[in-house]
Every structure is written in C-alpha cells, then in structure tokens.
C-alpha cells in the first residue's frame, strides 16, 4: 500500500509483542521489547536513585553551608545551586522531548511515545522550580520578582510549551493521535531552546549572560563552581531516575491494559470460561 502522506493516519505503528518475529533494522528497537526494558531499567534504577540523591545532597549541602558567599550578592548566591541545575534540566528535558519526537515520528519507536508522555510533567516541574527560584533570587538582588526580559519570557514560554505537550498527549481517545500531535508540538517548540540559550547575548536583558561557556574560562571562582557542578550532576541523575521510574510504571500499566483487554475479548467472544 502506497501511503502518500508520510504522517497519514493510515500508517499506524504495529505493536511489537515480545513473542513477535525478530525485527531487522536499527538497534534502537532493541529497547522496544517491554520485557527487556523492564529488566534493564529495573537493574539501573536503584543505583541511579541512590547515587542521584547522594550527589544532590552532597552538592546542596556544600553549596548551602560550606561554599563562600559572593563578594557582592552575599549568601543569596546560594540560590544558584538550585536555580541553575533546574534551568539546565528544563532545557535538557525539552531537548529530550524533541529527541523522543524524532524517534517517534521517523522510526515509530513505541517506547519514545511513552517516554515523551512521562518526561513532560517532570520537565515542567523543573521549569517551575527554575522560575520560582529565579523569582526568589531576583527580588533581593535585582529588586523585582519578575521582569519581561527576553530570558525570563522565553523560559516562561518553555513552561507553557511543557503544559501544552502534557495536555495534548493525553487529549485524544486514541493515544496514537495524542502521541503524534505532542511530538509535532515538541519539535516546533524546540526552536525556543536556542532562543533561551542565546537570549542573553542577542538582546539587552536584565538576566546576566552565561558564566560557564564552551569557549572561555568560567567566570565563577572554583569554590563556588564545584558545588554547582555537583548539584547539577546530582539533579540530572535524580531527573533521570524519576523519568525512568515513571516510564517503568507506564510500560507495566500498558501491559496490564493489554492483558485485561485481551481477556475481555476472549470472554466476550464466548470461547468459554475466562482464562485464569
């Protein structure tokens, strides 16, 4: 059958059942097998959780109690150890949504849709943390809770993009339609990521430019930079652990639904007693 529209609704991904025939093609589909995914993620998750919590606690404790106050901001600079990792994960989370969208739209990877569904709320929470802590930092330092400069506004737009994705992916009775719509939204929304990153360089903003760049030396003293790196790595691991736990739950919930549906079909077709 020749399908003219590449994203046409007639082209549904065929579900891969674990018992199905071995599929040739890119190795990406290796993780599409739910059983293998659950086994692998089940082995990784406890480690990810423990290490993530430990590194975050280490970084935050160092930042809150043992790092020096900034020469002009004083102790308020300690808000950075929460704000900057949250900001990084807000962007990184949306980037991973965009990656899932490509995997879903081009390769029809079944796990990518579930991943997008589970990453959305977590990314939105970290964006909210970024906005809230930024506000709490802005009031005492800048003198304003909020300003409509390009950096703050583009992060607020990112938050609304997350909310849109969360609503859209759950909006349809047929989940496949929701997955597709949300994937397209995630891809279109990803143009906001370079805008967030470069807003402080392209336009006059109240928000200061990046302190850590790929090209130059960081403009942060090592005593402040180290705890920041630890809390950023720790929060990243925590983010990954939360997403992985949610994804495991989603995979198992889907399997439960499939089994119950199959059972109901079986019973309805009058094939005899319900198979126990």
């Amino acid at each position, binding site marked *: 059958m020749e399908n003219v529209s590449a994203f046409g609704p007639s082209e549904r991904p065929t579900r891969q059942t*674990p018992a199905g025939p071995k599929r040739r093609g890119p190795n990406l589909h290796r993780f599409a097998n739910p*059983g293998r995914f*659950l*086994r692998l993620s*089940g082995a990784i998750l406890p480690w990810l*959780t423990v290490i993530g919590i430990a590194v975050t606690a280490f970084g*935050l404790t160092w930042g*809150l109690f043992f790092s020096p*106050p900034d020469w002009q901001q*004083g*102790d*308020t600079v*300690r*808000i950075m150890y*929460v*704000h900057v990792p*949250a900001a990084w994960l807000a962007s990184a989370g949306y980037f991973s949504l965009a990656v899932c969208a490509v995997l879903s739209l081009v390769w029809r990877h079944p796990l990518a849709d579930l991943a997008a569904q589970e990453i959305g*709320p*977590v990314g939105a*929470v*970290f964006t*909210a*943390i970024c906005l*809230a*802590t930024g506000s*709490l*930092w802005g*009031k*005492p330092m800048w003198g304003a809770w909020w300003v409509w400069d390009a950096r703050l506004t583009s992060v607020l737009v990112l938050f609304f993009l997350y909310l849109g994705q969360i609503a859209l992916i759950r909006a349809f009775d047929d989940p496949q339609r929701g997955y597709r719509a949300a994937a397209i939204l995630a891809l279109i929304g990803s143009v906001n990521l370079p805008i967030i990153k470069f807003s402080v360089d392209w336009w006059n903003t109240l928000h200061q430019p990046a302190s850590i760049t790929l090209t130059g030396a960081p403009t942060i003293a090592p005593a402040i930079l180290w705890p920041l790196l630890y809390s950023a790595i720790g*929060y990243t691991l*925590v*983010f990954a*652990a*939360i997403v992985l*736990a*949610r994804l*495991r*739950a*989603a995979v*198992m*919930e889907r*399997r*439960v639904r499939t*089994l*119950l549906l199959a*059972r109901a079909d079986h019973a309805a077709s009058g094939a005899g007693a319900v198979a126990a």
Partner: protein
Amino acid sequence: MTHLPYIAASYAIGIVLPSGFGIAAWLRASAARRRLLAIDPRAQAREAARRGRDGGDGP
C-alpha cells in the same frame, strides 16, 4: 545569612518538589508492578527468576 527567607524557600522548593514527584513515581511503579504480577504469567516468571538470582529475599 543575608536574605535567609529567600534562600530557605528556594531550597525548600528545590527539595520538596523533586522528592514529591520521585515518591509519586515510585508508588505508581510499585502499584503497576503488583497489578501486573497478579495477571501476567510472563511477569511472574521474571519475578521468580529475579528472586532466584537474589537468593529469594526480594521486596
């Protein structure tokens, strides 16, 4: 500390929200696992294999 309320509020937000989401995810995963174990022979086999490997003291 200067501006202590702002710092305390920031850390509270940065700790409470991820913890809450983490705990919710963990509860959801364990509930899904219980339901799956009740009906899926394949999951039961996987669980049995895991327990066997761990020496039978799984959660």
